[in-house]
């Protein structure tokens, strides 16, 4: 297993280099940040200022020189210039990464619990009203656009606040500004801001995972060893928890590992609607202002997480399924 892990990590290095070159090339195609920033300004900044900014973004260098400077800089902790002259891209990115992590951990827990419960309950009563209900709900949430769920939740919450005269649901950011006084008031405030994005993210995630869980459970239910366990007179509860669920959770575990990887690059809409300063908002703001080196950094981090997510999924497979052994 250790050899396998090391080998996969070594394989990741050329993949990351390839991804870095591809993304750097792609990011050199649209207009540069200096041209975008100063376009249409009246009065136009002096040409000397524009030239200085071009130089700061290394736009007076060849493509390969820019790429080399960027790669070299990363190894020295410098991820490149940004429109924000005070920016330390890596430091800023990690701060946003932390915010996204806070958001997705709770959403994932809620989604997994819901998915396992509904998936198992659907499978053990296949084609029952309950199964059809969960299937229907799953597809409803799966087919709803994220922005629509988020906006709907937000509207309901704001109407709840205004009609009850309370301020429990926060719709802007991870906490109120100014923050309330007192420890418990702050805890309530954090919770009030966490509820809506968590539900929004959890609903769409649960929907997909529950289908996984249901299919996996159905497959296990029809396997020989489960029939044998039942024939031996083991109780239904014990068969379910000890024999079926344990095996049926394997695909779920790997799916979750991959979902986490996707989440770090894919919570843009939820973060935007609820004004959370996570990776999604950081990335989309950089894209809209053509802040090239920030976009590159976020893409590289997302790529790294996807590689690690895949590796973790593969390792978990081997850990959970005794039939799988990596040479």
């Amino acid at each position: 297993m250790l050899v396998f892990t090391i080998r996969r990590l070594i394989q990741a290095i050329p993949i990351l280099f390839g991804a870095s070159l591809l993304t750097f090339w792609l990011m050199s195609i649209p207009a540069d940040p200096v041209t975008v920033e100063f376009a249409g300004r009246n009065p136009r900044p002096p040409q000397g200022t524009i030239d200085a900014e071009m130089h700061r973004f290394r736009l007076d260098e060849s493509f390969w020189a820019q790429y080399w400077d960027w790669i070299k800089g990363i190894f020295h902790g410098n991820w490149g210039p940004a429109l924000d002259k005070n920016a330390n891209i890596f430091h800023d990115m990690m701060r946003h990464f932390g915010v996204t992590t806070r958001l997705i951990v709770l959403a994932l827990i809620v989604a997994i619990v819901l998915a396992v419960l509904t998936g198992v309950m659907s499978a053990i009563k296949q084609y029952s009203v309950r199964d059809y209900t969960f299937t229907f709900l799953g597809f409803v949430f799966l087919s709803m656009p994220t922005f629509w769920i988020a906006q709907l939740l937000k509207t309901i919450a704001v109407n709840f606040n205004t009609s009850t005269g309370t301020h429990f649901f926060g719709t802007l950011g991870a906490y109120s500004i100014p923050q309330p006084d007192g420890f418990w008031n702050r805890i309530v405030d954090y919770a009030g801001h966490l509820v809506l994005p968590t539900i929004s993210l959890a609903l769409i995630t649960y929907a997909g995972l529950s289908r996984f869980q249901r299919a996996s459970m159905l497959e296990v239910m029809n396997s020989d060893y489960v029939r044998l366990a039942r024939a031996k007179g083991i109780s239904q509860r014990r068969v379910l928890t000890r024999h079926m669920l344990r095996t049926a959770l394997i695909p779920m575990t790997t799916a979750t590992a991959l979902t986490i990887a996707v989440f770090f690059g894919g919570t843009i809409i939820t973060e935007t609607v609820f004004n959370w300063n996570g990776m999604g908002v950081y990335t989309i703001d950089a894209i809209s202002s053509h802040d090239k080196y920030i976009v590159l950094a976020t893409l590289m981090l997302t790529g790294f997480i996807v590689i690690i997510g895949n590796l973790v999924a593969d390792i978990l497979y081997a850990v959970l399924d005794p039939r799988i052994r990596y040479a």
Partner: protein
Amino acid sequence: MRSGSKRLAGLVAITAATLLVAGACGTSSSSGPGQSSQGWSTCDKDPNNCNSGPTKPGGTMLVTDEKKITSFFTADAASNTYDQAQIMSGLIPSPFILNPDLSVTLNKDLVTSAELTSSSPETVVYKINPNAVWMDGTPITADDFIFNWKFQDGKDCSATDCPVAGTTGYDAIDTVTGSDNGKTVTVVFKTPFPDWQALFALFPANVAKTYAGGDIYAPGGLKKAYAGFLSEGGAVPFPKWSGGPYQISDYQKDVSVTLTPNPKWYGATKPSLDKIIYKIILDPAQETEALKNGEVNVSVAQPDGDLIAAVQQMQNVNYNLSKGPVWEHIDLNNKNKFLADKNLRQAIFLAINRQEIIDKTVKPFFPSAAPLNNHNYMPGTAGYKDVITPTGQGVGDDAAIAKAKQLLESNGYTGAEPGGTLKNKNGEAVTLGFSYTQSNKLRETTAELVQADLAKIGVKVTLVPKPDLSFLGSGDFDMVVFAWVGSPFVAGSKDLWITGGGSNFNKYSNPQGDTLLTKAAQDLDPTQEAADFNAADEIMAADANVLPLYQKPVFIAVSSQFVNIRNNATSAGPAYNMQDWGLKADAQ
């Protein structure tokens, strides 16, 4: 499980009921599709004084900010944005104020007088208020004027060391000298600069000295001072100085900026609010819900029909839409092989129906929108003169189409009819691209209407959506719609129209116009300046280079518990009188 289902059903029912009740309870505080809500009904006629009233001490005002802070040094090109300037208005003193009615008045808190004492050479004398001090108690003196001149003149500090947003005006100064212990400042210009009132938004020289490590004017001193100011928001968490009514007391990167009163503020009106907090909300679409939920009290957003409708439904929120100096226009690239012909340009502008564009874009939520007829001056200001109507451009009715057709045919064009294909005298079919920013629905509609208008004279127009305006500088467009941010200070607009001007993206050129523009930009007499600018504008209008469409509406919505905050459509924004903002005296 069943009880769970019941609970779910109950929750849905409660939610639905809540929505219905909330909808039923909402009473409009607005006066319909007008310019202002009922509470602000005087804003249309008295923009400088509406929403005035006595304040009571205390309170926190939460204001939206739609851009991240790149640094607090707004003189720097990368940080010279509207949102950052709004925040810094509370700290940076300027000798003049841009008022909501586009007038310019003396900031008597900072200077007791500022007068043009000679026109040859142009000399301006500022008398600084004896009580004016920076937050550390250092008097505001001529040293501050000299420092601000030196780092922005493009000569004493190179563009590499000091990449400022602009050198205009500062590069025209010959000397700045102080007298009366620095409380009198005499500025002598080497070339006339009519917009002298736009100069000297002051950054403190005493702080610059600290950053420079002593003498600002020693070699490298200005560079170090500049770098020091730039580091505010980074290595230095936020500016620790202020010469205005407020100081910055907290900055959470990408989240918020908190202002609290400057204890050394010397102005006549002391701030009454405890705090003003600017909340960074990058997606303007989220501001409406935030306003409704009380998470912000002031929203300054790009208006559209949905926004206005939503705000009209809110209780205890006032709003105003004002016309400002930001104006939408259609540009023709004079270097395009077809558009190089003035006759075609004139025919195109004759065929475009501006009123229809206005009716189908801004008018539904901004009823007073009207065609703009000058390229430099806004209606209601002293220099405004209609230079478009006499040309017949922008009408697009049957008579105008017939005139356009006749103009084209008399110049060798064929096919100038609805459904036809316009061909020039070389037999080439006239096809043009119309560029617009794709995220802007109003511009998309404008492009579609222009496409339909020009089809009436046989011009084939292809719509070219663009992600941003970065293509302007390279001239990679045939026709384009975008906006210029105007100003009561018009001399700078010379660069938009003069041959070789940095912002003359259409590459328009007319030697007679150039002469008039050059003279206008140096006229110290405002009447003469307007006469020369308008003479140049008449020439340009006849040349059909840029067709002004309308003044864009500027929107503000404010919780009704606050007074003395109002719309200001100029670049100064609502923050022009930040010291006056406060909680209404009878607010709960």
